[in-house]
């Protein structure tokens, strides 16, 4: 029996799968972890991109323990989830895209953190602002990729592609609304 089959039929995996409570709790905490992780890092990215401009950047770092709590919740719950059906995940390209999105997002979180708080240029120079905004926008895209692919893992390839196209269209429409009506909607302030 291959290692993946062994993991999938292991005592631990079967225990979680057969326990309705454990399995759904793992799923629920995976979502909660995502909200903490993407929420705090996303808020940092939004601030860098110009949302809530009067919010000072330095204190945002004090929310990072919540972000790291979300990261560890997701590492733990994600590890459990992978153990349940590894033979399905290993042949699913969207699983690799999701993991790629998560790795990219975490790398960008660290780069942005170092740039803003770790002795980098920060937002003090035009070049620093440009770099920060590029990192922030890339971070939001990476989280969106991870969130979308994570959600559509259970669907057919056609549905995955169609959903991804739908998300892109909604995001473009959303950006247009923010661009032209953001101030009047209170989403962007001077």
């Amino acid at each position, binding site marked *: 029996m291959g290692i993946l089959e062994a993991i999938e039929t292991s005592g631990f995996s079967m225990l979680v799968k057969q326990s*309705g409570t454990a399995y*759904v709790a793992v*799923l*629920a*905490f995976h*979502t*909660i972890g*995502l*909200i*903490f992780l*993407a*929420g*705090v890092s*996303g*808020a940092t990215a*939004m601030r860098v991109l110009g*949302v*809530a*401009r*009067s*919010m*000072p950047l*330095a*204190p*945002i770092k*004090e*929310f990072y323990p*919540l972000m790291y709590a979300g990261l560890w919740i997701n590492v733990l719950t994600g590890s459990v989830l992978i153990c349940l059906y590894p033979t399905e995940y290993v042949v699913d390209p969207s699983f690799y895209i999701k993991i790629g999105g998560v790795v990219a997002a975490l790398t960008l979180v660290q780069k942005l953190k170092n740039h803003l708080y770790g002795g980098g240029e920060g937002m003090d120079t035009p070049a620093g602002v440009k770099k920060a905004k590029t990192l922030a926008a890339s971070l939001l895209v990476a*989280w*969106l990729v991870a*969130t*979308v692919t994570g*959600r*559509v893992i259970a*669907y*057919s390839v*056609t*549905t*995955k592609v*169609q*959903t991804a*196209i*739908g*998300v892109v269209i*909604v995001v473009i429409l959303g950006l247009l609304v923010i661009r032209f009506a953001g101030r009047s*909607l*209170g*989403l962007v*302030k001077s």
Partner: protein
Amino acid sequence: MLGLPDTFLQLGFVEDLIIAYNWVWPLSEVLHFVGLILLVGIVTIYDLRVMGVAKSMPVAPLRQLLPWAVLGLILCVFTGLVFVTGLWANVATHPMQAVATDVYLQLKLIFIALAGINLLVFYQGGVSRSVDNLAAGEDAPPLAKFIAATSMILWIGVVYWGRLIPWGL
């Protein structure tokens, strides 16, 4: 339930869309998640500040993020209505039947209602005025902290129960 027919919350055109286009339901799920990240993520950050975490953050500028939490709420309500009104097309269960029998859906709705009442107490009860202009380093009154802690627990509960809904159908 409540003397209403099982088909009470069903909308034919939503069901038709879900049946005709495979991407409608998963797209709604993705947008529901994005809405949750905005709503619960930002509200949690705000609640933590009121509770005394990250005290160097003044509250007034932090409040500028709240319209994005409202955007998240709107996304969640809109996509949530797609799930409810189009439920029959996806899992052949009437929405009223789901409300009557799915304990996780019931708990989610109860937690949302409690979060709404908590919010009303915060704003209509005047507690928000004691928090709105807290400067860096200042502490919120105990009642505000209690409301913030309650808010955080309730919204995390909404996410938790909501994730379990498919297993209660």
